[in-house]
């Protein structure tokens, strides 16, 4: 009898231990998962970020890696040899129109654009301006009253290019308050504003931000303090959260965008269907917006922008102007730093502040303003270093190594162009760059998972099993313990 009682006691202990483990482990696991969510796999999923849906079908959608790459010059751009070569070719082709035998068709006007742009890219904007004025006179001759007809969308490139070249030619003088240069810059600005009016979404709204930038610099020339209070998006220095996440993501549509190839292609590349407008609206409405706070900026620079604007609009514009226009620019670098800082993209933000500091000499002519900029960037960087728990030395070494790589690639690309052109190859040949790209790793960095949003899952099937297991263990333990006690009672009596 004693042996049976000891056996029952042992059984009771085994049951309690098993049940204890069976009950406690799942409960603790769920609790820990919930506490550390979303870092635990199985508790969340990743969905495409809403900014992956471009404003217009066929337009460029922002990838955060683009910003990282632009800051490190990781993109290819044509060198002087390429522009010289095109310039010669354009001049030859234009000569065929000179005798009047050939009608001035669309090709002729494209050639004029190319000729003027080549002058600009070769540092001779002043020589390109008369070409574009001639083009405009041919497209929209002045009337008897000396006025030009109303702007038309088909002449958009003329307005944009003429405005840009005028701005290039006159900006320096205008900032020094030379009256002629100021008039020239204002004329350029008016042409760019005209190009925006007739084609508001060209190049993902780049011209819109070109206008804002010119207004910002003009305003800064009148009031330099403006430079150190807000960036060219109107975001104040030290703004606590310039690009807050809005939440309220349309998860179901984003899920479809992720999983449905045809749907994704339609939204990204087009053609879009009429019903897509609402879906795109709800996706793009969830993109973080830029919180412009500077009243002076709103009045002087962003008066015709729809506020608040989504962060991808200026980001794409700055990336575009940097890669296809003027190159590295501290004002754009600072604006990108603020955007990335606000989005919690600490590494990109740190690099953007670093690049801004490196370009401080081009920020403004006053050394005191430059020093203020560097101090501000260093302060922001030290906050980011603490948050990332990475030392400034490590980050700076990585930054310099990557920047050196980007510059070396650009130099190699331009040297290759020069070499091939000298060898008599034509850059418009589809296979011109084949030898350069052969065996070369892509210059663009891997976008990784930066352009995703995290959705926390309510409760996975596995969690449900764990909960059921805990309940089952508790019930079984109760039943078995009752039985053990009843047997013990029987034995005792």
């Amino acid at each position, binding site marked *: 009898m004693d042996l049976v009682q000891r056996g029952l006691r042992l059984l009771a202990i085994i049951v309690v231990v098993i*049940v204890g483990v069976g009950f406690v482990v799942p409960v603790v696991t769920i609790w820990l998962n919930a506490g550390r969510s979303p870092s635990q796999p199985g508790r969340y999923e990743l969905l495409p970020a809403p900014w992956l849906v471009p404003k217009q079908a066929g337009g460029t959608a922002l990838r955060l890696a683009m910003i990282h790459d632009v800051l490190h010059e990781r993109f290819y751009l044509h060198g002087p040899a390429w522009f010289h070569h095109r310039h010669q070719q354009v001049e030859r082709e234009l000569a065929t129109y000179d005798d009047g035998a050939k009608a001035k068709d669309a090709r002729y006007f494209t050639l004029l654009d190319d000729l003027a742009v080549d002058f600009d890219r070769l540092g001779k904007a002043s020589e390109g301006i008369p070409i574009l004025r001639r083009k405009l006179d041919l497209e929209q001759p002045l009337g008897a009253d000396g006025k030009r007809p109303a702007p038309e969308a088909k002449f958009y490139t003329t307005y944009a290019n003429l405005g840009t070249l005028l701005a290039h030619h006159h900006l320096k003088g205008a900032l020094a308050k030379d009256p002629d240069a100021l008039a020239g810059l204002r004329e350029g600005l008016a042409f760019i504003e005209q190009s925006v009016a007739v084609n508001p979404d060209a190049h993902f709204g780049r011209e819109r931000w070109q206008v804002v930038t010119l207004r910002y610099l003009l305003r800064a020339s009148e009031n330099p303090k403006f430079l150190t209070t807000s960036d060219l998006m109107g975001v104040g220095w030290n703004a606590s959260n310039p690009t807050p996440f809005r939440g309220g993501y349309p998860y179901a549509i984003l899920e479809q965008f992720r999983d449905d190839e045809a749907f994704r292609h339609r939204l990204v590349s087009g053609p879009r269907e009429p019903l897509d407008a609402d879906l795109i609206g709800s996706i793009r409405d969830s993109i973080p917006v830029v919180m412009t706070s500077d009243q002076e900026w709103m009045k002087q620079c962003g008066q015709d922008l729809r506020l608040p604007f989504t962060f991808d609009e200026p980001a794409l514009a700055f990336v575009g102007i940097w890669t296809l226009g003027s190159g590295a620019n501290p004002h754009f670098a600072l604006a990108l730093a603020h955007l990335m800082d606000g989005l919690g993209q600490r590494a990109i933000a740190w690099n953007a502040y670093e690049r801004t500091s490196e370009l401080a000499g081009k920020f403004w002519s006053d050394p005191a303003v430059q020093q203020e900029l560097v101090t501000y960037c260093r302060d922001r960087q030290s906050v980011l270093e603490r948050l990332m728990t990475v030392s400034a030395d490590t980050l700076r070494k990585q930054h310099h190594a990557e920047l050196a790589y980007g510059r070396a690639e650009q130099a190699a690309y331009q040297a290759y162009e020069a070499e091939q052109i000298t060898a008599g190859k034509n850059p418009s040949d589809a296979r011109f760059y084949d030898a350069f790209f052969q065996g070369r790793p892509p210059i663009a960095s891997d976008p990784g998972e930066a352009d995703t949003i995290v959705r926390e899952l309510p409760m996975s099937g596995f969690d449900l099993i764990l909960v059921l297991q805990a309940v089952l263990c508790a019930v079984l333990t109760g039943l078995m313990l009752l039985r053990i006690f009843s047997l013990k009672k029987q034995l005792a009596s």
Partner: protein
Amino acid sequence: MRLVLVIALVICTLSQPLPACINDSATKADEQQFASGYASARARRAEMNTFHPGMLLLVLPSLALLGVGFFWLRQERLMAAKRQQRLFRQPEE
């Protein structure tokens, strides 16, 4: 003095970067070349909702308990059968 300041400012601003937005025959191709570097990743299905086989260990206690329960019931049935056998044998004695 003012003239000197103006000249100094012009010289200093020579390095001022210029915003540019060019439209020529190469713009579109260059834009596409830049964006194409990121195109492959655009279609990637970003999902990290993975299941780890090791997580199955969590259900082991339940399975063990079921085993014990099953064994317990079997023993109970055997004991009940034996008790009945003993009860049936008693009248013959």
